């Protein structure tokens, strides 16, 4: 009796690893591996929207997404070029600007200030609000007639005419970028702040004793330690922005015209609205590849810690 209890205990103990890891692996296989496999699979098929029949088409979906259908005048599909450009502008501007802003705020927050906790709380909040709510909130801010920005600008006399921000391609992109910066800067702040706090305090002292100026201290002490955080901040930020649809969807739906159509909204539209699931999947695969490529590039630039030899 007692021995059987003992041996049961021992048996359970032996099974600790499979029992704790197994369910998660199965779960992940079901929820990540399987869909990913399906994505790759369906990128090779065409589904007839009328008959719902599927047909293996090889790489045709990729060709349709990437290349000029006629193949006569231009090599690349005009939409692909246009939306890639939009995506580049959107991701490029918002990542760059939010990174610089976030770095500044992180440096300020890293100072020995009383009430730092409160500032940090206040700074974080935009990131943890639902994107839909943030997107709509900014749509409301930019609204042509009753929006707060037009209100502020005209009621203070800075502007004589109200601007229909979201009706103009360039301004709409700008509005999107601003909203994106608003939402994601806190993330940069948190990550960079963690990096800043990793810098051993004594190195600053050492540099000061060594006679280093502020700028020299930043490059010689702060930056090497910040690099891993920069890597994380940029990687996550960029791959997040490439995939992020929420803000675009609620603020502009890719409009006006297609001036804010980015890869994510294009993918959504292609597969959900036009039911071209094969091409949507192909686009998904392309995004996947680009994401991994970007991560690889960022790693080569910012990879490694200051302690690496």
């Amino acid at each position, binding site marked *: 009796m007692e021995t059987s209890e003992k041996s049961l205990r021992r048996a359970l103990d032996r099974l600790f690893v499979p029992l704790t890891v197994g369910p998660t692996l199965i779960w992940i296989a079901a929820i990540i591996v399987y869909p990913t496999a399906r994505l790759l699979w369906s990128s090779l098929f065409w589904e007839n929207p009328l008959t719902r029949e599927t047909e293996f088409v090889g790489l045709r979906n990729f060709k349709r997404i990437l290349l000029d259908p006629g193949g006569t005048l231009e090599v690349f599909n005009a939409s692909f070029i246009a939306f890639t450009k939009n995506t580049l502008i959107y991701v490029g501007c918002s990542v760059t600007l939010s990174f610089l802003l976030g770095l500044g705020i992180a440096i300020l927050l890293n100072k020995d200030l009383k009430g730092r906790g409160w500032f940090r709380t206040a700074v974080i909040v935009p990131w943890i609000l639902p994107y839909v709510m943030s997107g709509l909130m900014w749509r409301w801010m930019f609204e042509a007639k009753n929006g707060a920005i037009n209100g502020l600008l005209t009621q203070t006399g800075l502007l004589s005419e109200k601007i229909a921000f979201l009706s103009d391609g360039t301004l709409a992109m700008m509005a999107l970028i601003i909203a994106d910066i608003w939402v994601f800067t806190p993330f940069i702040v948190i990550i960079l702040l963690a990096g800043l706090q990793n810098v051993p305090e004594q190195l600053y002292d050492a540099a000061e004793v060594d006679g280093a100026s502020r700028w020299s201290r930043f490059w010689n002490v702060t930056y090497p330690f910040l690099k891993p955080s920069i890597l994380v901040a940029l990687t996550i930020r960029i791959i997040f922005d490439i995939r992020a649809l929420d803000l675009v969807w609620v603020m502009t739906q890719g409009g006006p015209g297609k001036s804010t159509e980015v890869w994510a909204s294009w993918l*959504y539209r292609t597969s959900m609205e036009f039911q071209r699931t094969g091409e949507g999947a192909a686009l998904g695969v392309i995004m996947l590849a680009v994401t991994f490529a970007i991560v690889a590039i960022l790693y080569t630039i910012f990879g490694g810690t200051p302690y690496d030899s």
Partner: protein
Amino acid sequence: MSTKDSPVNRFADRLGLNADDAWPSVVRERLVAYGLLLLYVIVIWFPIYYIFITSLKTQGEVLSLPITFVPHDPTVQNYVDIFRNRPFEAYTINSLIVASTTTLICVTLGTMTGYTFSRYNFLGNKALLLSIVAARMIPPIALIVPFFQIMSSPPLIGGLTGNLTDTRVALILTYTFFNLPFAVWIMKNYFDGVPESLDEQAQVDGCSTWEAFVKVVLPVAKPGIAATAILAFIFSWNEFIFALVLTRSEASQTLPIAVSLFVADDFIDWSHLAAGGMIAALPGILFGLFFQRYIVSGLTQGAVKE
């Protein structure tokens, strides 16, 4: 010091702005830092303020000009309306169920798996861990089609009738996709920081591996679990795109969808939208105010480590 014991000086003292104990340039820097931070906070909170006051305005005031930055006649009518005229109760309940179930699953699995990854050197654990990290990089939007297909095809297992679209189950399954790898990662990094000698002490004290895990490691890991749970909850609570694709009725629609429903083809009901938005934003704001520490630590554990 006592000669200038005015309230202003004492306040400056509290903020570390007293030039007596610090270098003048440091004091100047601090002053500038306070100024800039304050400005930044005001700027980024202004939209939240604006949508908040919009939620307290009548529709008339919202649409009237000039724009008011303090509501003339603040009212909670919008909040009452959305709960009375629209199924906001159902949306809220959906959001709560989906977010908390997802959190529960992710925390349970993430904790167990994270612990084992942190402590054991089993066959292929490095590769498995790496693939979990890689899984976090898959753009969810790319998987929207497969998810949609899977959820809308008849279930493989179980005797449930119909497919999973428009059920909370579909959302929960989907959200674990975002959150589970993240949870495993946070918890693994957290456990890496819990001295292994604690588990060993527990074993020496007569605990089997399971008992040591449950009785000693888990209680010690509470802050890590809290961080994981809060982030998983927030992510699930806020998610929009998958909910948009996978839900279609109040049987499963969550608050973000509910808020987007105020956007009609040619008209947006801003005052009610604002009220709905504030409800949807509530957990975020509350968590931000009270659990900022956990959010930051979870994020840094989950993102920065290695």
